[in-house]
């Protein structure tokens, strides 16, 4: 289990992981009133959809005309997360669930040793592989979880994360994310950003 977690941490900087990590970070940042709730829901549901596809419990492809409503749902999840009050846990949970499920559904991961074992055995060893998938995803989404935790651990960090510029950037990303998903170009956008940043 430790090896699975650390393999997830090890792929954070890979483009194929950034595809799912960047929306998670942005969604966590806009969730002023419940970052940890959103981050945990996002992690679990991203893992669940990845696992369900590997185990062949989910057979609908995230391609074709379906990407248009997905783009709309993405923007809606960001708006819901941003506008939710602390008492409104349902809205925060829904935002995390929808955001995570869409990200996990569209995720085409580069597969290392541990993730390979999970995917190769997902259809024959369900509960264990699902647990391992959540552990792997928690590793891959660690920066998002750390941002969520920092709110609780270091109250001073709120000054950074509550800053208007952070909020504008995160909501701006949400719009770009939703639009590029709707036109089927989101992976290309992340790939191009990755190529430019690593050149």
């Amino acid at each position, binding site marked *: 289990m430790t090896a699975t*977690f*650390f393999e997830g*941490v*090890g*792929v*954070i*900087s*890979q*483009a*194929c992981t950034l595809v799912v990590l960047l929306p998670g970070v942005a969604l966590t940042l806009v969730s*002023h*009133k419940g970052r940890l709730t959103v981050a945990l829901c996002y992690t679990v549901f991203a893992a669940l959809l*990845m696992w369900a*596809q*590997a185990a*062949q419990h*989910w*057979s*609908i*492809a*995230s*391609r074709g005309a379906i990407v248009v409503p997905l783009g709309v749902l993405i923007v809606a999840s960001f708006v819901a997360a941003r506008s939710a009050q*602390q008492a409104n846990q349902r809205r925060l949970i829904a935002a995390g669930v929808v955001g995570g499920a869409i990200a996990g*559904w569209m*995720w*085409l*991961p*580069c*597969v*290392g*040793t*541990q*993730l*390979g*074992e999970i*995917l*190769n055995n997902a259809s024959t060893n369900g509960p264990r592989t699902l647990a391992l998938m959540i552990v792997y995803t928690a*590793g891959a989404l*660690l*920066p998002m*979880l*750390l941002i969520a*935790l*920092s*709110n*609780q*651990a*270091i*109250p001073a960090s*709120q000054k950074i994360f509550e800053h208007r510029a952070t909020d504008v950037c995160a909501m701006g990303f949400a719009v770009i994310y939703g639009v590029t998903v709707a036109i089927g170009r989101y*992976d*290309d956008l*992340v*790939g*191009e950003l*990755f*190529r430019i940043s690593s050149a």
Partner: protein
Amino acid sequence: MQPVSIGKRIVAMAFLAAGIGALLWVYLRDTPTPVALPEVSTGTAPDDESVTAVVPSSDVVEPIPIPILGQADTLTELDGWLNTDANSLEELRERNELTVVQFWTFGCFNCKNTLDALSRLYSDYGDQGVEIVGVHAPEFSYEADVDNIIAAAAELGVTWPIALDTNKRNFHRWQEGPTGYWPRVYLIDADNQIRFDKSGDGAANYAQLYDYVGRLLNGEA
């Protein structure tokens, strides 16, 4: 925001410290090494007969039968081929006894990890009727550029045929379910049956592939 209790804050700080520690540990240690093939029995007769002579027959473990996983698909609607004069998977299959088909993309870290293992397989068995076909299915637009693929193949030492699956039609058709993974490798026998199918860059997977290739070449059904 409501104030967080001291207890919760301590727990959160512990998780935060552990998470930052995990990040630092992973990114400050050495770069992981590519997949290495452990020494495995290839099923072929060793040149040195004394090796078998010292092994008591009662200790010889029967190898696990190589499974038959179904009929292999073909590659269609490709955007071209590199490193070969062939124009189809069938043409390459006719020239060889076994075909290894790997779905990869040159920007994928885990795909690159497998190339040493595939290079060894190719150098050991390439002249014995084994062909490797790297089906290049790009995830990102910069990986779809043919010039980039040619340059990356040269840099990475990919000398086996590359099928260009730019729109990932074969990538999605070959892989069951709504998604697909990089890398994924298949071994296809002379009867066009899939004998091996694994996702990921695990060394054990590629050692098993090497083992199966040796055994099938040696006549195992």
